[in-house]
């Protein structure tokens, strides 16, 4: 029963996702949807490290960009097949994460944040300074579309609609892979390290090793997103290493729900579609988006998916209680109950503020 309740919405959502390019006849929004899927993959990789290992990295786009540049260089300059480009991207990002992980993962708190910022800064600046290889600020051009076939001949994902399915396919594979990883022994190790590192260590879980596994896996998945991005937009320039992408990915994960699997996917929708909805604010658009993010962080600490889960949990609890008392437990009466509850919270808050101010003025006077 519980399983059926989960399977049905998943199937409905999946079929909508697959049918979308045929029912939504707007090239611009399909283009945005491709970016949403790519960002969702990127968000999943970031969430793997932030949500399940508790490490706050500000350098994840370094691996996204490394993957993109690696595949861009080998496919555009050396004419290698795009499939090989994917392997090169994953390999380069994985090796880079492994090398930087040795010093970085031993650092704690703000020092780790600094290390990841320095990593992003150095890679971003190198992409600009080594202009003979990367094309500098004018960018790495003519990155080909992914091709299925032998060598450089075969069927190409050269239309937005085709690429949509490629990105969606990669997202589903990544999602299932991370779901499997999280529910495996390794994933339980991650959560143990996140919740209490010393305790995990004393139980024979080597925190450094688990962090390294998580860090490298996250980097590889980021590189996959970078590969998709590079072959979708066909041009890369150093702006992808700018901090806007860091902030995008952080907010994607946090607004969607840190440490939950669907969180980053929901977050990718928020990051791409809320600014679209705010178009009427014109020049105040980014300002109002920042305001929206601020409100979300303050009022929904667990993100949108966490909020939904919490409400569901509250409803189940309330329903069980009502049924035990032999009362009706429909949705309308629950909403009535919620209304009363929130009204009470608001009055409590007002009273709190009033007593606080009274106390302050008494102290001063």
């Amino acid at each position: 029963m519980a399983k059926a309740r989960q399977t049905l919405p998943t199937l409905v959502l999946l079929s909508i996702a697959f049918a979308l390019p045929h029912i939504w006849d707007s090239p611009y929004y399909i283009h945005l949807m491709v970016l949403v899927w790519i960002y969702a993959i990127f968000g999943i990789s970031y969430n793997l490290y932030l949500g399940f290992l508790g490490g706050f990295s500000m350098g994840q786009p370094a691996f996204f960009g490394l993957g993109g540049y690696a595949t861009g260089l080998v496919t555009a300059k050396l004419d290698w097949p795009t499939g090989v480009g994917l392997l090169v991207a994953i390999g380069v990002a994985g090796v880079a994460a492994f090398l930087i992980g040795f010093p970085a993962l031993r650092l704690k708190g703000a020092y780790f944040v600094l290390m990841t910022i320095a990593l992003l800064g150095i890679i971003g600046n190198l992409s600009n300074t080594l202009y003979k290889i990367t094309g500098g600020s004018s960018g790495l051009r003519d990155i080909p579309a992914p091709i299925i076939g032998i060598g450089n001949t075969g069927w190409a994902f050269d239309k937005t609609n085709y690429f949509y399915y490629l990105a969606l396919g990669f997202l589903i594979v990544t999602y299932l892979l991370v779901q499997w990883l999280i529910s495996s022994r390794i994933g339980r190790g991650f959560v143990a390290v996140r919740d209490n590192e010393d305790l995990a260590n004393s139980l024979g879980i080597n925190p450094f090793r688990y962090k390294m596994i998580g860090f490298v896996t996250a980097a590889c998945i980021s590189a996959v997103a970078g590969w998709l991005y590079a072959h979708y937009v066909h041009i890369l320039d150093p702006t992808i290493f700018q901090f806007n992408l860091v902030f995008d990915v952080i907010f994607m994960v946090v607004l969607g729900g840190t440490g939950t699997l669907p969180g980053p996917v929901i977050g990718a929708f928020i990051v791409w579609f809320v600014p679209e909805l705010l178009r009427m604010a014109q020049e105040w658009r980014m300002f109002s988006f920042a305001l929206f993010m601020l409100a979300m962080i303050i009022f929904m600490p667990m993100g949108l998916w966490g909020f939904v889960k919490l409400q569901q949990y509250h409803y189940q609890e309330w329903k069980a209680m009502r049924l035990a008392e032999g009362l009706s437990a429909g949705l309308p009466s629950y909403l009535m109950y919620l209304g009363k509850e929130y009204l009470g919270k608001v009055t409590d808050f007002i009273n709190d503020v009033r007593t606080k101010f009274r106390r302050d003025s008494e102290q001063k006077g």
Partner: protein
Amino acid sequence: MSQFDLVMQQIVNGLVLGSVYVLIAVGFTLCLGVLKLINVAQGHFYMLGAFLTYQALEWSTGINYPMAIVISVIIVSFAGLVVHYVGIWPVQHRGQIAPILTTIALAFMIENIAIIMWPGSGRNIETSLSTRSRNPFGQVHVTDQRIMTFIAAMCLMAFLYLFLQRTKAGKAMRATTQNQVSASLMGINPEYMRAMAMVLSALLAAAGGAFIGPLFTIVPNMGLSALFKAMIVVLIGGMGNIPGAVVGGLLLGLMEALIGGLWSAAWVNVAVFGIIIGILIVRPTGLLGSKGGI
């Protein structure tokens, strides 16, 4: 210009640039010490300080440069208070990451307000100080503005030091840094101390912005790179360590000016970030020791 003069010129420029980094970084480290959080909006206070100085000079011809600095510093201090009560206070019991996120959102808001208010390709502040030039030794050129920036920054640091060491509020702030629970048992309200640290750090960053305005073109997106400079300085000097931040800021300024002037301007950032990674690998708690406290 001989090689020696070139080096001396870069050292002078580096010290001036470094003194501005000191102002931003000391505020940042104060926040880190008292509030135990990374304030992402710190660089944006600096940007706002520079633009408000420009705006105050535009408002009326009766306002001269020192008055503009005071006006801008007061407004930005108030902005610091707003950031504290809107962004940090509601999430202060929610761990390390939530305040970083709220300050990122607020920094975005400040930056977008600046983009709307001062559109175009940046502004220059013109003062009488920036045109006159002196030659203290050899062929080295130093404008009065640069001399004033360095001296004023060092004076502000001296005032801050006296405030923290001699006044009651300063001692209370140091106590809060060391142990919040004991401090509140001694009758110190940590809430006030947090707000005060935030205002102080906004004030220092705004002063830095007001001094840098006449030296460089100011643009709305200069806040973030200033924040990273502050982080690097704090890394060199140690977290929450104010004398360390002063030394670190001057060192960073010197380093940047020397690399940029003698080697290649394009490689400055690569070299600086490389040095950070090097420091973190060799001494993971900062170059000048890890002793907390201010």
